[in-house]
């Protein structure tokens, strides 16, 4: 009798997990995995941004050198009107150089909210710390499939008033820790921007989104398609790249 009771308890213990709700992982832990996947001290990228405006589409090609989260240098390669324009993000400031005027200009104030090259991304978006875990607290809102991939749905709440988006909702690929879809909201709850990742590739041991569509919900147009042509992780970048002298 005693043996039969023990056996019954063991059997119950074995099948119990099937009847209990699945244990949700910690939202903060998921967010840290997302940051770790994309995190790298030094990166060099080449990308093309195609902006689908109301008058038609135009493409802007650029090369960026990125160090950590506070330093980046971007040079626009194409079209001819933008060629030679450079941008330097340096310790919380954004400088731009335009060869047509031979001027190094600090982009500040309301200008930071303006679109970069007419795209659906603002200068403020460029200036943001790429590490989501630093900017937001996360809670798991559920599980959903997005484009056939199982995802965690996270609700992100900003850690401070100065952060551009008060709240975000992200769909994180459960296997690859890549954000596949994102909705960014204002404090009022108004949807400001959406991001959809259309392609992810494995590069340098990481899963990298290589085709992303950004859409500013407040303006008409077909959004901005961002295509990552190449990315080099842990690249050697000389210090002088991240100085104002390199703009000219």
């Amino acid at each position, binding site marked *: 009798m005693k043996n039969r009771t023990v056996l019954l308890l063991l059997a119950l213990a074995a099948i119990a997990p099937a009847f209990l709700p699945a244990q949700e992982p910690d939202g903060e832990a998921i967010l840290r995995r997302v940051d770790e996947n994309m995190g790298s001290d030094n990166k060099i990228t080449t990308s093309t941004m195609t902006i689908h405006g*109301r008058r038609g589409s135009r493409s802007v090609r650029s090369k960026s050198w990125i160090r950590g989260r506070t330093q980046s240098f971007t040079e626009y390669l194409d079209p001819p009107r933008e060629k030679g324009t450079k941008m330097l993000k340096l310790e919380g400031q954004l400088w731009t150089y335009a060869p047509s005027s031979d*001027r190094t200009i600090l982009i*500040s104030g309301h200008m930071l909210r303006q679109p970069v090259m007419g795209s659906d991304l603002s200068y403020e978006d460029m200036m943001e710390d790429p590490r989501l875990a630093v900017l937001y607290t996360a809670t798991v809102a559920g599980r959903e499939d997005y484009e056939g991939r199982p995802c965690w749905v996270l609700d992100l709440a900003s850690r401070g008033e100065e952060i551009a988006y008060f709240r975000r909702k992200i769909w994180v690929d459960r296997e690859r820790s890549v954000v596949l879809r994102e909705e960014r909201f204002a404090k009022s709850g108004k949807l400001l921007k959406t991001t959809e990742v259309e392609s992810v590739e494995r590069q340098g041991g990481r899963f990298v989104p290589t085709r992303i569509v950004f859409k500013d919900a407040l303006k008409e147009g077909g959004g901005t398609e961002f295509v990552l042509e190449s990315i080099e992780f842990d690249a050697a970048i000389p210090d002088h790249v991240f100085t104002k002298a390199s703009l000219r």
Partner: protein
Amino acid sequence: MIRFLLKGLLRDRSRSLLPFATVALGSMLTVVGFSWLNGAISTIVEASANFSAGHVKIMSRAYANEADQAPNDLALDGVASLLAELRRDHPALVWTPRIKFGGLIDIPDDKGETRAQGPAAGLAIDLRSAASPERRLLNLDKAVVRGRLPEHPGEILVSDAFAARLGIGPGSTATFIGATMYGGMAVRNFTVSGTLRFGIAAMDRGAVLADIADVREALDMEDAAGEVLGFYRDALYRKKEAAALAAAFNGDRRGDGDAGEFAPVMVTLHEQAGLGQTLDFASAVYTLMLVLFILVMSIVLWNAGLMGSLRRYGEFGIRLALGEDHGRLYRSLIAEGAIVGLLGSAVGTALGLAVSYYLQAKGLDIGSMLKNASMMITDVLRARVTTTSYIIGFVPGLAATFLGKAVSGIGVYKRQTSQLAKEFEA
């Protein structure tokens, strides 16, 4: 007879002083009120027309839907041919293209790096063509505070307050940074040729005025313009004519689909920025003012007449007993009223005109109340005296006195001659 009545009025002041003062005060307030409102509304309409709305304005349909944001990515294309067509088909108006643009004005230091900067609200106009009406419309020659108007390519005017904030003056270099018509980055160096003050808070905060050719080059807007403005050559806005012109223009250009989005559409001054409501409001206020004036004055004067009749009860009785008939007595009362009304209205109108002319010459500075205003309204509001100002108080003043006397004097007919002896005995 008139001399007799005048003597009575002058010698018995209790009979004439109150009605006279009431009519004079009422007429004066009406004249001042009308002239002030007329001046204020005219100033707002004129400033709005000249600086922003035109008597009619042509934009692309898409631009018109978001006109308050001046979205140059939705600007009109093919402006040269559109202007040629407008000048040929509608010569009663003078047509001029404009571009409103926003961005940063950045001032370099010795190394060419940012020393100072501020957000600018730019207006690109035809500054250098001899035939351009813009200098006159914006009163630019008088608006220049320091320096001169642009004469060469690459020269701009900056509002004096903005220039002081940035620490620049004539001869300084200022870099504009904004967005091109296609969304690209627009960066262009300009030389400040002068500073200006329009006396319009919305313009003087951060205004930059540039020649349209320079701005077209900077914003990649060749043969494009945000707006084409039309002004009647005599500077008088004609609501019905403008509405008919806009209806005919728009009827010829009904586009659909995406092409229609960029098709030109004409709107009138009345249809823009709540100006229609302002004009309708002014018209309603004029009417209300006149009705109230006549009504209130009539009631006051009727009341004064009734009181006068009570006080002069004995006098009327004696006059009737002496053989004066009711009609003659009633007519003499009305004649008295007419004399009081005539004199009161004349004095009131004269006083009102004097105050109005003073307010027209000196104006009233309301600049401190307009620091954050976005409306095109000048800091100094002035009254405007027109022909109507001369009659707007006079005629109702006269009419009110006449009405008051006519109503209060009816009591004369209730006195029975047969009862007069009994009344006197009592």
